[in-house]
């Protein structure tokens, strides 16, 4: 293949100009004649029985067009991600602080607020269930009456863990705790519902899964899905929290009830109280190894506080367990995954899907093991690391695993790991410097056995311009750019000739959710397939016209080429002729992610089989007096398979690291008795410009053989995963104190051992 003109080039997003000029329309920016203001009435309690719910006063207020409760929902009163157990509007018992009991649509915000205030709700507060360990006990009060608080309990075993532990030279056992973490996308959740000309409902939705949204809105409205349309405007970030539905269903319900367009945008406080958080987990973890440092067994028990409803707890725990052993060769693995209902915040998807919690544990444990054995953290990882062809304990065979060790070696080289002791470790009496590494794997794609497909429609017009329709939501991660690049590359045209229609279920085929680092792969393949169909038509036509053999022809830089040399015919000429002669330049494709069939004994359910490998090394400075941790340098080496848009790849890595630093050091939703204490960006502290260290990055391009377009694999989730354990290990190195709980705040860093020596 000739050198690529577009793929692999740093490319501005097709929407960048709209964004920098302020023309890009996000949900809050949508204006329609007669647009009403929608609002939800949320529970003030973590758990309470609703004694009385009277909306008559609110309904009779001037300027109020709709007030709805559970009784007014025409169809199913539930969200449906995995289990239909979270009500859209509560019937009789609120089970967390973010439960909604009523929704209003009014002429303006003030009237809507007044209507909410006029709704009479009498709550009988009930003692909440807030401690997952207590909630697990037999006979514990039930969050959902009649249902066990243990909503999920799965044991996975490979090999013989007990025998391996018994035979081990060294066994390390620790308990780790992680926190509720907030996605903190900048654009709060929103939806705009309207009644269309045929009596159907259209909803503009800030979401990751427009087609799943459509299904949920239709079932709430008891309307056929064919009557519901979901359009994604620009989306201001999501990071998993907009994978599950939020207010877009209510926007549809209110528009239907009011028979007018309704705007429903959460405020920041509402947003932070209501959507799914990263699961806090308590993980008991045992590592067994030989005295040479060879891993023999991993045994883990993962308890996740799921909040009252299922949401994506099964999926998150599934991924946590899948990667609990890390990127290491270990045959004996036992992992018990337990999801527990409580009256705490709901939990679900957040970049990494359970893998960040697992990585914090297995990579902390690896350093503890290295210390115990007097080994170098790099050496012990290289000794145990997976490779191409390694069969994981899950039964999955790694098709391309070179990057595991390559990323470790490269990162070590970049920071001069072996010379780290030559760096000043005590730059001042009260300061300690340390170095720590973490290396991880995370799968891309939904997993074996799940419907992992994406469709696109591609059309070239007579002037050579192209419209690409895809149902893949772009929340900023850049799938639109990637798709446009792939189409432009294959059709030999410029990026400016490709218009990608933002996902709209009336126009775009289903591409599934933008999650699990999957879209570049699955939608990428769909674009290549559709573009190749059109390309084939153009080249066949060109061969007929020029009488030159088809295999000598190509399309590049807007022209037909013959043996790589430009011909006088342009793509535009060919497109015009195709239009006149009746050759359709229209292609549709539906690509399903194919899992290999040559590994019959994959025993882990829904296992992913394309892996994002990466290594990060942190250099930190710890202030022994204040407990403050400063990340001075961060080295990141990631494998992208092949970079389609390098700007996008580096952007994902940098953004992921920033989130990882927050996860490591500052970010924690503080929840007391089910009540979130810090539902604002003022005291839920995400990294600011000053918190970002010098980032030194290297992207490896080791082509992925499995289901990856041009060898490119997903990159979105991995960057956040190694950051926290790398920082943890660096703190350990700096102050000789291992930490087992996130975030690693000053309170947890202090007291620093032997800090007494710094006192005057």
């Amino acid at each position, binding site marked *: 293949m000739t050198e690529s003109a577009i793929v692999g080039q740093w490319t501005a997003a097709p929407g960048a100009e709209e964004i*920098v000029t302020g023309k890009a329309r996000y949900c809050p920016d949508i204006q329609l004649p007669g647009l009403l203001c929608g609002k939800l009435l949320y529970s003030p309690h973590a758990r309470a029985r609703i004694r009385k719910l009277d909306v008559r006063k609110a309904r009779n207020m001037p300027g109020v067009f709709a007030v709805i409760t559970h009784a007014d929902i025409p169809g199913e009163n539930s969200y449906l991600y995995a289990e239909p157990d979270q009500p859209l509007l509560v019937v009789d018992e609120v089970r967390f602080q973010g439960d909604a009991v009523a929704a209003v649509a009014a002429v303006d915000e003030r009237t809507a607020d007044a209507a909410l205030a006029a709704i009479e709700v009498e709550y009988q507060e009930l003692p909440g269930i807030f401690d997952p360990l207590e909630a697990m006990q037999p006979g514990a009060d039930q969050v959902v009456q009649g249902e066990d608080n243990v909503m999920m309990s799965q044991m996975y075993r490979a090999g013989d863990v007990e025998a391996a532990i018994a035979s081990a030279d060294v066994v390390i056992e620790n308990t780790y705790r992680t926190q509720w973490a907030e996605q903190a996308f900048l654009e709060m959740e929103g939806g705009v519902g309207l009644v269309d000309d045929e009596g159907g409902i259209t909803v503009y939705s800030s979401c990751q899964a427009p087609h799943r949204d459509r299904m949920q809105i239709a079932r709430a409205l008891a309307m056929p899905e064919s009557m519901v349309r979901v359009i994604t405007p620009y989306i201001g970030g999501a990071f998993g929290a907009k994978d599950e539905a939020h207010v877009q269903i209510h926007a549809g319900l209110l528009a239907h009830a009011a028979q007018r367009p309704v705007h429903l945008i959460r405020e920041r406080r509402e947003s932070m109280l209501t959507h799914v958080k990263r699961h806090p987990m308590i993980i008991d973890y045992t590592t067994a190894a030989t005295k040479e440092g060879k891993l023999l067994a991993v045994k883990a028990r993962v308890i996740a506080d799921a909040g009252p409803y299922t949401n994506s707890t099964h999926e998150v725990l599934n991924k946590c367990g899948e990667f609990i052993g890390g990127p290491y060769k270990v045959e004996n693995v036992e992992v018990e995954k337990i999801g527990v209902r409580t009256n705490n915040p709901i939990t679900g998807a957040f970049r990494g899907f359970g893998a960040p919690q697992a990585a914090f544990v297995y990579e902390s444990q690896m350093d503890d093991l290295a210390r115990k054995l007097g080994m170098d953290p790099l050496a012990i990882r290289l000794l145990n690391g997976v490779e191409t062809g390694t069969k994981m304990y899950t039964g999955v065979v790694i098709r391309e695993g070179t990057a595991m060790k390559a990323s470790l070696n490269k990162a070590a080289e970049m920071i001069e790991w072996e010379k780290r002791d030559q760096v000043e470790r005590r730059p001042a009496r009260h300061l300690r410097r340390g170095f720590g590494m973490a290396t991880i794997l995370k799968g891309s794609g939904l997993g074996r056995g799940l419907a992992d497909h994406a469709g696109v429609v591609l059309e070239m017009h007579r002037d050579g311009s192209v419209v690409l329709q895809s149902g893949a939501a772009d929340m*900023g991660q850049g799938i639109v750019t990637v798709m446009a690049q792939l189409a432009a590359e294959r059709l030999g045209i410029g990026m400016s000739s490709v218009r990608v229609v933002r996902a709209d279920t009336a126009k775009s085929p289903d591409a599934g959710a933008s999650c699990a680092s999957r879209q570049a792969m699955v939608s990428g393949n769909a674009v290549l397939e559709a573009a190749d169909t059109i390309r084939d038509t153009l080249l066949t036509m060109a061969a007929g016209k020029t009488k030159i053999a088809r295999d000598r022809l190509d399309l590049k830089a807007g022209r037909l080429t013959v043996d790589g040399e430009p011909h006088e015919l342009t793509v535009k000429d060919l497109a015009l002729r195709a239009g006149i002669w009746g050759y359709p330049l229209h292609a549709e494709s539906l690509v399903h992610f194919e899992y290999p069939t040559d590994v019959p004994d994959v025993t882990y359910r829904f296992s992913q089989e394309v892996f994002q490998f990466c290594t990060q090394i942190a250099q930190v400075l710890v202030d022994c007096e204040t407990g403050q941790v400063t990340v001075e340098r961060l080295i990141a080496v990631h494998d992208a398979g092949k970079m389609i848009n390098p700007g996008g790849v580096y952007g994902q890595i940098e953004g992921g690291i920033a989130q990882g630093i927050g996860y490591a050091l500052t970010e924690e939703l503080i929840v007391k008795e089910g009540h979130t204490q810090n539902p604002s960006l003022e005291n839920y502290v995400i990294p600011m410009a000053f918190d*970002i260290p010098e980032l030194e990055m290297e992207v490896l391009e080791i082509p992925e053989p499995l289901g990856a377009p041009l060898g490119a694999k997903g990159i979105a989730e991995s960057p956040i995963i190694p950051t926290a354990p790398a920082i943890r290990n660096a703190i350990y190195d700096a102050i000789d104190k291992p930490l087992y709980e996130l975030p690693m705040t000053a309170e947890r860093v202090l007291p620093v051992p032997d800090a007494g020596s710094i006192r005057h």
Partner: protein
Amino acid sequence: MSERIGITVTVNGTRYEREVEPRLLLVQLIREELRLTGTHIGCDTSYCGACTILLDGEPVKSCTMLAVQADGGEVLTVEGLEKDGKLHPLQEAFSEHHGLQCGYCTPGMLMSAYYLLEQNPDPSNAEIRKGIQGNLCRCTGYKNIFAAISDAAAKMQTGS
């Protein structure tokens, strides 16, 4: 209905006279009355900076100021950065350097960067960080934003 107050505000060079309620926020005036929706709301508490605009040349978080306080003032929003159909060097640099992902923080970030370069045409990396410390970005990790601002500064200095 509370009493309305007459104000005159010049936004992006256009003079507007409006009767507004005293409680109307400047960001609401800009977004709802003037329909300039490039200025975003991200936190409601003046912390995220998505709503940053310039008022009489100074950066202001417009969600934390009343419209009446801007009476007689000159406001510059992201929509006013483009001149004669030509993007401001900062706008070009943010696109080229991938200084944006979801784009929601971008308008506020651009306004803070614009002010920074007005005050300091050749900022160091540390000065750039300080200049945008009031603006949160959750997608980019800021690195490409720093690069975009540096590049725009260089281009503005050479006049290219």
